[in-house]
C-alpha cells in the first residue's frame, strides 16, 4: 500500500473518509492526484467486525468524543452530550447510514427565492442549480448503485413498509415506494445483494449497502495514489505567510502529534468537526478561525426536522425484519405554504431493535405506560420524518469556553433552537404520520422526539458572495484558495432529502474542479 512522506508537500490532504472525504479521495486518486486521507477513527472489516448488535456497534463506531449542547431543542434535554449520531471510523457515517439516496429538488436549491423572507431564517439560494448538479447526481447514483436508477430494481417490500404503504394508500398519498436506496437489490460492483437482515445502522454485514469503507477507499488504494491513515485525529490546519494552507497537525494512534505537509487541504469531518477544526485553527493572520472572514463558520447549523411516528396495532408487524429504511412517502415533500409552513418533509420507514426502541422511543420515560409500549414492540410500525429545517445564524457550532479534549483543543458546543417553521412542520408531520397508521387500524400512536442528529448540515455553507458564506460553488473557501470543504457542512440549505447522495455528487464534482485547477497550476 502506498505511503507518503509527511514532508511531501505535493499531496492533497483529505480530512475524513466518509461520504465526502472517501468519495473525494477516490475520485482524486483515480485522476492521478496523490492523496493522504486522515481519518480519526479505526478501520473495521465488515466481514469480521460488523455484528448485529445495536449497542455493541454503537460503542465501536459512534463519535463519542465529548460534545456539549445548548438551546431549546429536545436533543439538548434528552442527549446533552450526544448532539449527533455520526461515526468515528474509516468510512465515517456511511457505515451507519440507512442508504436513502434522494436528489435535492429545484425549489430546495432556491430556498430564498422560493420561500421568500422568513423572519429569523438566514435563507440563501444555493450558488448552483439543479441542472449543474444533475450530471453528478447521475454519476453518484451509478457509483452507489441506487435502486430505481440505472435499471436497478427496487428492494422488495418488508412488513414495516407494507403497513406504511397500506396506510398511505388509504390516506390518498400517491408517491409511495420502497425507496431509492444505495443497497444492492442484486449483486453489483463485487458486492452482495441485501438479505433483509435489518441492522443497517450497525454496519451492513452483507456489504450490500454502499459505504466508502469497502468501495471508494479500497478502490482508491488500488490506484497507488492514495494512503489512508486511520486513528489520525486532525487538531489544526496551518498556513504559510501568504495565507495559503500548507500542512495539518494531527494526533496519531499513539497520541503523538504529527505534521503532514500539503498542497491542498480538504475538510470532510462532518458539520460539527469541520467548523470546529477551522475555528481551532485560528492564527494571528486569521484570528476568528480559517476561512471565516464572513463570520459564518459554524453558523446556520441544520439537522433536518426529524421526528418519528410509531403506530401500534392489534396484530404483529415485526418491523425489525428487513431493511431499516424500507420505503418512502414523498407526497408531503413539496412547498405548499397553505399547510402553515414553507418547504416539506419525506416520510420514511424506520425500524429499531428492542435495545434502541427502549432508549429512543420516548427518552427518559419509565413506568407502567412506557413498559406497555415496550410490551407492544412486535406490534409496532415506525416511520421517520425528514423535513427541511430553517438555517438560523444563531444555531451554531462554537468552541466551548472551558472544556477541552485530551489533546487540549476546545470541545464543540452545538446550539440549536427550533424555528417556528420547524415546529409547525413537525406538528403537521406528526398528524400526517398518525393519519397513515390510523387508516390501517393503529390503536395507539407514539410521537417520538428527534434522535441525535445524523444529518448535520450547513456550518460552512456555500454562497455566491464571500460576505455571507464560507465556500464557493466548488466548496473552495472564499478566503483561502487551496482550502476546501468537502462534506455536508457546505450545504447552503438542507432541503428535505437525505443528504448523502448530494454530498457524494458534490465531491465527484469537486474532484473534477480540484484536478483541473491543479493542472492549470491555479492551486
Amino acid at each position: 500500500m502506498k505511503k507518503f512522506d509527511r514532508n511531501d508537500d505535493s499531496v492533497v490532504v483529505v480530512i475524513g473518509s466518509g461520504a465526502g472525504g472517501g468519495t473525494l479521495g477516490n475520485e482524486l486518486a483515480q485522476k492521478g492526484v496523490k492523496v493522504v486521507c486522515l481519518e480519526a477513527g479505526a478501520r473495521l472489516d465488515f466481514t469480521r467486525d460488523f455484528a448485529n448488535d445495536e449497542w455493541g456497534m454503537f460503542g465501536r463506531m459512534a463519535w463519542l468524543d465529548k460534545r456539549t449542547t445548548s438551546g431549546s431543542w429536545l436533543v439538548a434535554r434528552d442527549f446533552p452530550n450526544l448532539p449527533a449520531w455520526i461515526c468515528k471510523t474509516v468510512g465515517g457515517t456511511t457505515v451507519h447510514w440507512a442508504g436513502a439516496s434522494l436528489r435535492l429538488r429545484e425549489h430546495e436549491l432556491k430556498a430564498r427565492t422560493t420561500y421568500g423572507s422568513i423572519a429569523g431564517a438566514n435563507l440563501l439560494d444555493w450558488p448552483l442549480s439543479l441542472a449543474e448538479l444533475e450530471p453528478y447526481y447521475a454519476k453518484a447514483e451509478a457509483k452507489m448503485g441506487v435502486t430505481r436508477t440505472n435499471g436497478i430494481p427496487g428492494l422488495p417490500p418488508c412488513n414495516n413498509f407494507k403497513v406504511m404503504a397500506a396506510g398511505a394508500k388509504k390516506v390518498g398519498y400517491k408517491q409511495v415506494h420502497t425507496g431509492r436506496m444505495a443497497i444492492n437489490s442484486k449483486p453489483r460492483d463485487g458486492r452482495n445483494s441485501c438479505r433483509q437482515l435489518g441492522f443497517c445502522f450497525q454496519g451492513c454485514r452483507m456489504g450490500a449497502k454502499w459505504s466508502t469503507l469497502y468501495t471508494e477507499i479500497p478502490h482508491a488504494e488500488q490506484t497507488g495514489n492514495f494512503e489512508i491513515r486511520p486513528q489520525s485525529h486532525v487538531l489544526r490546519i496551518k498556513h504559510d505567510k501568504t495565507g495559503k494552507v500548507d500542512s495539518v497537525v494531527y494526533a496519531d494512534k499513539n497520541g503523538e502529534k504529527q505534521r503532514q505537509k500539503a498542497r491542498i487541504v480538504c475538510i470532510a469531518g462532518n458539520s460539527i468537526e469541520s467548523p470546529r477544526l477551522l475555528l481551532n485553527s485560528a492564527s494571528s493572520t486569521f484570528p476568528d478561525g480559517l476561512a471565516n472572514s464572513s463570520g459564518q463558520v459554524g453558523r446556520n447549523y441544520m439537522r433536518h426536522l426529524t421526528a418519528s411516528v410509531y403506530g401500534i396495532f392489534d396484530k404483529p408487524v415485526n418491523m425489525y425484519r428487513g431493511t431499516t429504511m424500507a420505503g418512502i412517502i414523498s407526497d408531503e415533500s413539496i412547498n405548499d405554504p397553505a399547510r402553515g409552513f414553507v418547504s416539506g418533509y419525506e416520510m420514511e420507514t424506520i425500524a429499531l431493535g428492542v435495545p434502541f426502541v427502549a432508549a429512543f422511543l420516548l427518552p427518559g420515560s419509565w413506568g407502567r405506560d412506557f413498559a406497555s409500549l415496550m410490551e407492544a414492540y412486535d406490534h409496532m410500525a415506525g416511520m421517520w420524518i425528514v423535513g427541511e429545517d430553517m438555517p438560523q445564524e444563531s444555531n451554531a457550532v462554537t468552541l466551548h469556553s472551558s472544556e477541552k479534549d485530551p489533546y487540549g483543543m476546545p470541545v464543540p458546543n452545538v446550539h440549536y433552537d427550533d424555528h417556528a417553521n420547524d415546529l409547525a412542520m413537525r406538528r403537521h408531520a406528526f398528524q400526517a404520520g398518525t393519519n397513515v397508521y390510523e387508516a390501517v387500524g393503529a390503536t395507539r400512536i407514539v410521537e417520538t422526539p428527534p434522535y441525535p442528529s445524523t444529518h448535520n448540515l450547513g456550518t460552512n455553507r456555500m454562497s455566491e458572495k464571500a460576505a455571507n458564506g464560507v465556500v464557493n460553488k466548488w466548496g473552495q473557501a472564499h478566503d483561502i484558495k487551496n482550502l476546501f470543504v468537502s462534506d455536508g457542512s457546505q450545504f447552503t440549505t438542507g432541503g428535505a432529502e437525505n443528504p448523502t447522495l448530494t454530498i457524494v455528487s458534490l465531491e465527484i464534482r469537486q474532484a473534477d474542479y480540484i484536478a483541473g485547477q491543479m493542472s492549470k497550476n491555479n492551486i
Partner: protein
Amino acid sequence: MSKARFNRRQFLESSGRTLAASSLTAYLPAIAAGEIKFENLDDYTATVLIRVCRVMFPHDELNDSYYSTCVEGLDQKAVDDGNLAELLAQGVKKLDGTSAGKFLEMDEAGQTRMLTSMEGTPFFKTIQGHVVVALYNNPKVWPHFGYEGASYPFGGYLERGFDDIDWLPAD
C-alpha cells in the same frame, strides 16, 4: 395489549412463571444464601434497587432475575466509579426516609410516587439511564418482546418472514 404468541408462551414456560408475581422477598434468600453477590453494594441497598428497577420498567412476566442482573451491572460500574455506591446507598436511604414508610413496604403506586418525586436527581437518572440499556439489551428478555435479535447468523429475514404480514387491507 398484545396477545400471547407461541414464542412468548414458550418463553414463559422456560422462565418459570411461578416467579412472575414474586415479591421482592423471593430474592432476599437468594442474596442471603450467597447465590447473588454484590461487591460494592450492601445486600439491603441491592434489594431495594432491584425493586426500583422493576417499578421503573415493570414487565410482570419477567421474573426478578432480569432486574437483579441490572443491579449487578450497577454494582460492577461501582468498581470504576468510586462515588456510585455511595450515591446509590444515599438514594435508597432517601427512598426509605419519608413519612410514607420504607420503600419495600409500599405498594407499587406508592413506590411510583416516591420515584416520581426523585426524577431529575442524579440517583434517579443514573439508575434510569443504566437500566433502560441493561434490561432491554439483555438478549434473554428479547423473546418476551417478540424480538429475534441478530439475523446474520440465520441468513437474514429474506426467507424468514421479512414480508409475512397477512392482516393488512387488500384494497
